Structure formats: C-alpha cells, structure tokens
C-alpha cells in the first residue's frame, strides 16, 4: 500500500504512536484509497458492522434479564417485554435485528457474486466472510432457541437430530450435543453460552475480514485493478463514510418500520406458545433466512444425503474462487454469466419459498429441481461459462471509460454513470 508515512503533530501523540501505532492505524483508515465508482451495493459492509454492534449491545442488555432455564426462560422473556424499562424495544430490536442482519449479509454476498469480489486476489476475504456467515447462522439458530417457545424447542430438535444421521457415532454425538437424552435444560444452557460467545468470534473475524480487504483494496463495479491512490480513488473519509452513513440511515428506517410497527411479522406465532415436548407443531419451519438450506435438506429422501447436501451447499462456496474460471471479475462485462447469475438468484429465492411449504407434491419437485440447479450453477455453469464466454471489452481505468478498440460506448457510459 503506497501511503505516506504518518507523523502525529503533537509530541504526546508521537510518543504514544511510537509505542503503539494506533494513530497510524487511524490515519490509514481515514486515508484508505477507495474506488470512487462504488455503488450502493457496496454500503452493506458498514451496515453489517452496525448490525453486529446492535446485536451485541442489545444482546448484552437482554442477557442481564434473561434466565437460561427450561422452566423460567419463557417467563423471563415476558418479564423483559413487560417489566424491564424499554425491554420490549430492546428485545424487538434484537429479534428483528437478526433478520435485518441476514438481509444485509445476503445482499453483501450476492454483491460479491455479481462483481466477482471473491476472485483473486480477494479469496481470503471471501473465505473469512463465509466463516462469519456460518457463525451467524449458528448464532441465529441458537438465539431462536432461547425464548423456549414451541418453534424454539422443535427447531432445536430438528436441527440437532441432523447430527444423528452421521454413521456409527451419530446418536452419541447428538446426545453429547444435547447434554441429555432429548432437547432439554442442559441444551438450553449451552446454547445460551454459545450464543453469547459467537458474536465475539464474529467480531474477531470481522477485524480479519477488513484487514484482508485493506491489503488489495476494494473491488469495484468495473472489476478492474486500479492504482491507489490515484484519480480513480477517493479517501475513505469523508467520501465513503458519508455515503455509508446515508445508506445506513435508509436501512435504519426500514429496520425501525419492522421494530415499531410489525415486530412479530418475521417470527412465527407458535413461538409465543411455551415449549411443550409432548405437542409437535403442525409445521416446523426455521426462520426465513435459513429456508433455502432447509429446502435442500428436505429435497433428499435420505437423511444423511440431505445433511451432506445442506452443508455442501454452504461449503461449495468456499471453493468458489477456484470454480470460477473467468478472467473478468465483474458480471457487467460478462453477458452470458450475467443471465445465469439472475437465474441463480431466482433459484435461491424459489428454494426459500419451498422451504416454507410442506415437503410434498409440487413443492418437493421444485425443491429437487432447485437443489440440482443450485449445485449445477457452481459445478457446471461457473467453470464452463468462464471458459467459453466472450466477455465485453473492459475499460482501462475508472476515469477513462473510453475503451481501446471495439468498445460499446453505451455500456461504458452506463458503467461510469450509474454504478
């Protein structure tokens, strides 16, 4: 990174900075050269940081009032809702915050998929991001168990039972996870402990994610390497900070809409019924953000096969940088891949939809087609299209969209103006 050496102005600042270069770090963060053509899809990194901090702060307050015991958990949540000052607000921010977190992370991931941000030299950023995503799913799942309602209990039962599909040791592992012979008080206790731990692991990974980002610098909508700093870049502060702030505020308006006006619309009404091991709900469904994977799980007639495919659906993303054979990063210049990208988006949405439906009839057929296509997208489409596709001409720099030879001016202008 070609940056001028930062020297603090004050003597005290210099003294401190020589011993711990925090001020240098601060200067690096504010000066950090950022491509000037980043569009609003790039604001979700900041939004996600906000989501994580919101979840941690509200979560710590909730933990002060919550009781992790099978007999008391449900009542303690009602205590938070009724007797704790602004407890209803804190809890609704936390529960809706989880959904908003996933909404933002999905946009962030699909942004990366469209613009090829996972490609060299950013593979490590991508992989750390996926680890964060995996931890997020674990944290969200365990958090959903804590109110100890019917969906908490039965969701926990279904998901932990997946591990019993492992040959030979499956049942032992499941019992070990439960800490009992069924989902019970010990399960609730450990889920609470882990639910409190995971966000801090995520926080650590976020630091690594940003660190890894600051080595090559941001990708951008055009997907080309740029010189930093140059006339293609702007300093992070104030240009990107103000833009991120604006996007964050728009996001917060939507967030507040959920919290204040429809706080339970994203949850399931059954979770306001206290957990009852003797009564199974008619349909056990996970939260919306896990539905595509739930659809993949149920599309396979064999339990172990379903579990393998479900985890495979996530783990295949880890090797994505090596499955994509294209030399061009951004889908803006990849006319064929771009079509497949949108088909893939629709496929994932469809999987999410059938995940909420009973696994029978047409839904099962759709789930199977969707699952096959999901994997085909990564295993067949990405390597093959990358090799065969004739990409559009890529501009030399962000500031000079006029291309050398055979350029399509309208496209170049569109990229420069709109993205």
């Amino acid at each position, binding site marked *: 990174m070609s940056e001028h050496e930062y020297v603090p102005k004050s003597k005290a600042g210099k003294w401190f900075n020589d011993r711990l270069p925090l001020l240098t770090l601060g200067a690096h963060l504010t000066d950090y050269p950022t491509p000037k053509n980043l569009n609003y899809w790039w604001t979700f990194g900041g939004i996600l940081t906000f989501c994580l901090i919101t979840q941690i702060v509200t979560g710590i307050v909730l933990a002060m009032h919550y009781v992790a015991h099978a007999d008391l958990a449900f009542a303690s949540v009602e205590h938070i809702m009724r007797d704790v000052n602004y407890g209803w607000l804190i809890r609704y921010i936390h529960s809706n915050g989880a959904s908003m977190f996933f909404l933002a992370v999905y946009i962030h991931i699909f942004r990366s998929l469209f613009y090829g941000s996972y490609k060299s030299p950013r593979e490590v950023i991508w992989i750390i991001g996926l680890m964060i995503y995996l931890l997020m799913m674990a944290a969200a799942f365990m958090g959903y168990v804590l109110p100890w309602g019917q969906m908490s209990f039965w969701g926990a039962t279904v998901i932990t039972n997946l591990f019993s599909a492992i040959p030979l040791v499956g049942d032992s592992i499941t019992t070990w996870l439960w800490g009992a012979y069924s989902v019970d008080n010990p399960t609730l206790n450990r889920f609470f402990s882990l639910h409190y731990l995971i966000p801090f692991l995520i926080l650590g990974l976020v630091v690594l994610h940003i660190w890894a980002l600051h080595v090559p610098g941001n990708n951008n909508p055009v997907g080309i390497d740029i010189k930093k700093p140059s006339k293609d870049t702007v300093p992070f502060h104030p240009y990107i900070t103000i833009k991120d702030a604006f996007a964050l*505020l728009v996001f917060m308006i939507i967030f507040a809409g959920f919290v*204040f006006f429809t706080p339970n619309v994203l949850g399931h009404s059954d979770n306001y019924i206290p957990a009852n091991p003797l009564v199974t709900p008619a349909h056990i469904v996970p939260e919306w953000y896990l539905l595509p994977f739930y659809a993949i799980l149920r599309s396979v007639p064999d339990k172990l096969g379903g579990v393998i495919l479900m985890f495979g659906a996530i783990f295949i993303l880890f090797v994505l940088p090596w499955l994509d054979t294209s030399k061009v990063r951004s889908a803006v210049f990849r006319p064929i891949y771009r079509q497949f990208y949108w088909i893939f988006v629709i496929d994932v949405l469809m999987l999410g939809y059938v995940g909420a439906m009973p696994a029978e009839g047409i839904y099962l057929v759709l789930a199977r087609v969707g699952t096959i296509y999901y994997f085909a997208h990564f295993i067949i489409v990405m390597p093959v299209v990358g090799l065969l596709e004739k990409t559009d001409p890529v501009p030399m720099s962000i500031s000079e969209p006029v291309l050398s030879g055979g350029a399509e001016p309208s496209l170049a202008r569109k990229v420069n103006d709109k993205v």
Partner: protein
Amino acid sequence: MIKFNTKLLFLSFLLLISLRPLQSAEMIDPIKVDWSFKGLTGTFDRASLQRGFQVYKEVCASCHSMQYLSYRNLGEPGGPEFSEQEVKFIAASFEIEDGPDSQGEMFTRPGKPSDKFKSPYPNTQAAIAANGGAYPPDMSVLVKARKGGANYIYSVLVGYEDPPPGVTLDDGVYYNKYMAGNKIKMPNNLMDGLVEYADGTESTVDQMAKDVTTFLAWAAEPELEERHRTGVKVIIYLILLTTLVYLSMKKIWSRVDTEV
C-alpha cells in the same frame, strides 16, 4: 442492471404475497375487524378494554390463566387505565396465597396491585383434568401466539355453529368454523346479556367478543401504544436526519467528478 433489480424485486414480492394464501389453505380466513389498535398510530379503545376486562374476569378467568399480568398493569398508561383506587379494589377482590410466614405456614391474604393475576388452577395438570383433557391456554400472549391474531380470537368466539350434516362430535367437543380442524373443546360461553356492563353498553355476543379480544390484544402487547407513538417519532427523526446526510453527501461528492 437497474432493470434487472426491479424485475427481481417484483418477483420476490410476488413470491411473498403468494406465500400467504397457500399457508392458510386448510382454514377459512378469520373475520377482518377494523380494530382501533390497527395501523401505524392505532390505540386501544379505553372503554372497550375496561369492558373486556369485565368479560375476562366474569367469563374467561374461571378456566384461563393470565399469569404474566399483574393487577397494577390495569392502571398503567396505554391499558384499561383503571384508577389507582379501582386497581386496589380489583386486586383486593382476589384471595392470594402467600408465605411461608415466620411459622413456615402458607396463608392467604387479599391481593395487592403488585400481585400477578390469580390463576384458576394450581397447575397445568389440574387445568387439564378439570377441562376434559384439554388445556385452556394461558391468555397472556394468546393474541401473539395465534396466526391471525385478534381477528382469529374474535372469529373463534363468534364462530360456533351446529355441525354440518355428516360431522359427528364427541361429548364435550363443539363445532367452530374458524378453529383449525373445526373442533374445539371450549363450549360457547358467550350469550347475549351475559354480563352487565357498568357503562350501560348492550352486552351482545358480538360486543363482548370484540371487547374481550381488545383486552387480550392489550394483554399480549401492553406496549403497543407507546411503541406506535415512539415509532412515528423515530421514523420522522430518521427521515430528517437522512435528508440532511443526503444533502451533505451531495455537497461533499460535488468535489469529485462522480455521481452518488
């Protein structure tokens, strides 16, 4: 690209709206009531809450507990808002078990506003045994615990009918067109003129069902009025701040040749 995104949004929107009717295909939709607490600025009808409490106390409370509510809640802002004297009087009309005292004995005393609502049965098993094997659910969060919310509760209360020909019911089972599976173990407890409203309102079945549902909606979401009020303020504040930040952003970015 912009075009693609609009398409995508439209598609996901279509998916979302098609999701709803499919999920509830097995039940007929509950009656839609124009509740005063609906909408962004909805508030509870105070008189209806007080009447609803009366219906709860005189009819529902003999089987249904409301264990997460305290008598003091009845006097709090955003609820039925009974006066302090009324709340004390209501609480004192219940005999609450307390103790142990210094001799180790349990004793009963008149209720205080800080006491939780007295449950009709000592435990779940006793409630099930006394109700033909069906547990009368605790009503503290019942409105939030049922798909369809207040509309559903109201519909069930007014949805009792003679079973259609061909449907036979066991003893102690009743036919209700809004209940999932149409079979309910709670008898139709509401009949015209059942309670005598203090404010002179005519106690028709429909009126009592609406009042008690309003009361249950408040019990499930006692923060609703404050939530709506705060929400409106928060959204207005955020919109103003967003506008200011947007203008600042435009100003700052005017220094470079790129649009934001």
